[in-house]
């Protein structure tokens, strides 16, 4: 089943705020082997001018993927999650994600394309603090591989 192209251009309402915690940043940094002390040491982070410890550059995917779920689990979208693979990801950081941030995401479906039984969906998530300060623009392309029935 092809992904519903009618979703192109749709923007979802802002998500509930996500509270960025020091220990989640530490856990993520350890998982990806990011050993810069700025992820775990508040004193060092402050000495570099940050308010608190900051997240590694790809931490934003955690928030962006939670936003994407609004679309992916929408039955109207017609996405078979078991056939979904990540094709491309890009981040533009307006400033580092920092412990203590309360972040909301606004998801927009930039494009839905289908070709050769596969569908390609590009989504954009604007992450900002609850006060409206822009934090990160995350763009993701996923491929939903066609099943046997579409070949």
């Amino acid at each position: 089943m092809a992904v519903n192209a009618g979703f192109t251009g749709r923007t979802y309402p802002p998500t509930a705020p996500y509270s960025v915690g020091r220990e989640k940043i530490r856990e993520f940094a350890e998982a990806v082997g990011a050993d810069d002390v700025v992820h775990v040491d508040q004193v060092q982070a402050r000495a570099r001018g940050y308010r608190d410890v900051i997240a590694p550059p790809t931490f934003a995917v955690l928030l962006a993927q939670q936003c994407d779920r609004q679309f992916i689990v929408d039955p109207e979208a017609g996405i078979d999650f078991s056939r979904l693979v990540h094709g491309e990801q890009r981040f533009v950081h307006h400033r580092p994600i920092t412990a203590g941030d309360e972040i909301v995401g606004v998801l927009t479906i930039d494009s839905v394309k289908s070709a050769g039984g596969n569908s390609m969906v590009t989504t954009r998530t604007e992450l900002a603090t609850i006060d409206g300060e822009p934090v990160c623009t995350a763009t993701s392309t996923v491929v939903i591989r066609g099943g046997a029935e579409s070949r």
Partner: protein
Amino acid sequence: MSHAVLSINDVQVGQKLPSRTTHIDRASLVAYTGASLDRNRLHWDERFARSVGLPDVIAHGMFTMGTAINVVSDWVGDSGRVVEYGARFTKPVVVPYEGGADVEASGVVTAVDAQTRRATVELKVTCGTDKVLGRAVAVVVLD
């Protein structure tokens, strides 16, 4: 407390960044699954991965991307200086139970803008003979 962040004056196009190899095994996939909340079965359920035609479980593309950027953060001296980062997932990193997988990341400077103090780094990320990330590019702001 002094902390050395790389100066734009010390960076030239063509400059190579020290490479870094990350060993990925099932334990690292579980750790990343928990940390990222990306719990797709492809990354931890061998039976499921095989049922959709993969040879074995595969690493999250974002896990590979997350380890590769360490090359840039280490070189700059502050992870917070990475202002742009993007990549395509060109080949999966297959992680067998025995032996796991080694992902090697290296980088080269492709552009330097003294006025904005920005440098662009292109990353080469491989697992064995496979190029696992394509168009992997990061932009950093230097001192």
